[in-house]
């Protein structure tokens, strides 16, 4: 087990710059998730840790050792691929045992370790099957078993759940979390699914355009998004974002006025508020007046889209809410849960009322 550090790492493919000066440090035993839309550089980052891509500049350290020039086989990492990367001509047992075989571990020792790894992921009775005779979930388990059969310094997982159906994904997610906790191996996990990131990670690195936008605990990323990209990317439905202006301690946008402890220094800002921090009120009794644009029952709540002035906001209402299309409605926002972003830079603006310490 070991820490992983990336110092000033850059990656260019020809003239295309995939990563710009990335600094990232993963503590020993930590579960770090790289989260972002496709093409954001998360997979490239992980492949550089694995040694499948070379860094154009910067240093990569595993357990304090510089590994830039080490071949993948010498980095002592294990990886689970999006398409599993199982060897189709080998049985399940041979697949799991391959990392031991190439290290010259044979005989009963290998057999025992393969068996233990297979049992850990509940593959015991399938050891003689070929990968093509397995279901998607079983293939995923074989890939996991192959990763845990030796105790590597680092686990790398590249969207391991994206080829599974929704139900199985939830089950496997919990299994991965449990396994990582049990083994305590430093893990880097790549995904574009924010739920996976939030549920699995000790810390999440949100990436976009080859740059880490925010690196923090899931709670902090949800509660205090560092910029507009993170605010819009994390959360479902996405955070309500309303462009407006602060003057005299009041936020104003067309048709919307919110009073609160806003910073004195005004200017053009974007106000963000999550749907669960918006409450519904009778017309005339809220700080925002509007009409119901649509309402959608999700099961545990009703998402109400309200058009107010030039903007549309989504509020999470109790499941008993009923409001016809176009009926008048008012909204109140929890002033303590408001986020402000600089209109020009997109960066979060800290202000007095909020405990923006961390």
């Amino acid at each position, binding site marked *: 087990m070991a820490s992983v550090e990336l110092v000033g790492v850059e990656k260019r493919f020809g003239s295309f710059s995939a990563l710009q000066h990335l600094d990232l440090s993963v503590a020993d035993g930590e579960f770090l998730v790289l989260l972002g839309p496709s093409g954001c550089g998360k997979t490239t980052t992980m492949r550089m840790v694995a040694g499948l891509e070379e860094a154009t500049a910067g240093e990569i350290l595993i357990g304090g050792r510089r590994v830039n020039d080490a071949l993948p086989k010498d980095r002592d990492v294990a990886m689970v691929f999006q398409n599993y990367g199982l*060897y189709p001509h080998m049985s399940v047992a041979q697949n799991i045992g391959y990392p031991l075989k190439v290290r010259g571990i044979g005989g009963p020792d290998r057999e025992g370790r393969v068996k233990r790894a297979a049992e850990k992921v509940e593959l015991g009775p399938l050891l003689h099957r070929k990968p093509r005779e397995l279901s998607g979930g079983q293939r995923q388990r074989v890939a996991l078993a192959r990763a845990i059969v030796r105790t590597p310094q680092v686990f790398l997982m590249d969207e391991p759940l994206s080829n599974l159906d929704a139900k199985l994904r939830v089950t496997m997610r919990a299994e991965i979390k449990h396994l990582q906790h049990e083994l305590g191996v430093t893990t880097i996990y790549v995904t574009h699914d924010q739920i996976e990131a939030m549920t699995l990670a000790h810390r999440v690195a949100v990436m976009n355009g080859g740059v880490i936008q925010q690196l923090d605990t899931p709670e902090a990323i949800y509660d205090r998004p560092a910029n507009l990209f993170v605010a819009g990317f994390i959360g479902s439905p996405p955070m309500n974002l309303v462009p407006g202006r602060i003057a005299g301690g009041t936020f104003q946008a067309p048709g919307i006025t919110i009073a609160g402890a806003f910073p004195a220094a005004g200017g053009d800002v974007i106000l963000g508020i999550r749907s669960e921090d918006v409450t519904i009120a009778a017309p005339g009794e809220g700080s925002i007046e509007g009409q119901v644009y649509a309402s959608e029952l999700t099961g545990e709540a009703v998402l109400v889209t309200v058009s107010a002035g030039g903007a549309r906001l989504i509020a999470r209402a109790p499941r008993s809410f009923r409001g016809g299309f176009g009926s008048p409605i008012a909204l109140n926002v929890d002033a303590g849960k408001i986020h402000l972003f600089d209109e020009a830079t997109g960066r979060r603006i800290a202000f007095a009322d909020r405990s923006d310490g961390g």
Partner: protein
Amino acid sequence: MTEGSSLPGAIAAAPRPTRAEPVRLSSRSRRRIAGAARTLTILLVILVFFGPVVWIMLTALKQPRDVYSLSVIFTPTLDNLRTAFASPYFLGSRTLNSIIVTTGTIVLSLPIATAAAYAFSRFRFPGGNAWSLGVLATQFIPPVIIIIPLFVAFRSAGLLDTRLALIIANMSFVVPYSIWMIKGFIDAIPADMEEAAQIDGASRLRAIWDVVVPMAIPGIATAAIFAFVVSWNEFFYALVLSRQDAVTLQVGLMGARTERGDAWEIMAAMGLVIILPMLVLSRYVQRYFVAGLVSGSVR
């Protein structure tokens, strides 16, 4: 109808149905006639394209006196083969030469081609696509241009009339085309598996051997069939480069042209030995042609 008019009546009756029923035949009988015509055409095509092959093979088994007749019914004999194996035709040593040259070409070419195909499939080279296209382009150099310097070089190296010279000459077309063919197969194999092997602790070479080669076996086998067909059938290089010791089956055919005229029964016997492996492998040979079509060229 009277008895006397029965004959003309029968004749007159014949066209009547076409007049009484609608002018067109029913669609079912039309389809049946078209189907029969089609079957006949296909049988004729088979006769034209496969008949000659059968004819050669039958001739090989005819008594010499039957060879010079068109009869299809005869008492089969192995006399011609027996004669062909004796002096001056030496079918045995010719066959052995063909087997050694063909096997040698395959055994030397495929590992070389597989390694290069993998490299061209997975790595970028300065100059990009030009390399692998250049490899294919070599297929369009006419053999007559290659053979003159090869002949001169083999002569000064003392390699004329050796099987090694024929193997080297065959590799000039087997290696480039096999590279192209195997590369097509490796291109279709995702890189996941070999990456997994490398992370599992295998070197790149070991990953190629343990993971890529087993998965590319169908492609390598197809290339092997190709190498077999073209090496077995190679005539021109062998004609120029061999005199006596290294003469192959194909060149041996020329030996049956004696001053007293062509010894057809001997040629047919040699032809039989040449065709037999193709017949045995015909299913696989067809598969290789179809695979070759993908890359758009066959020698």
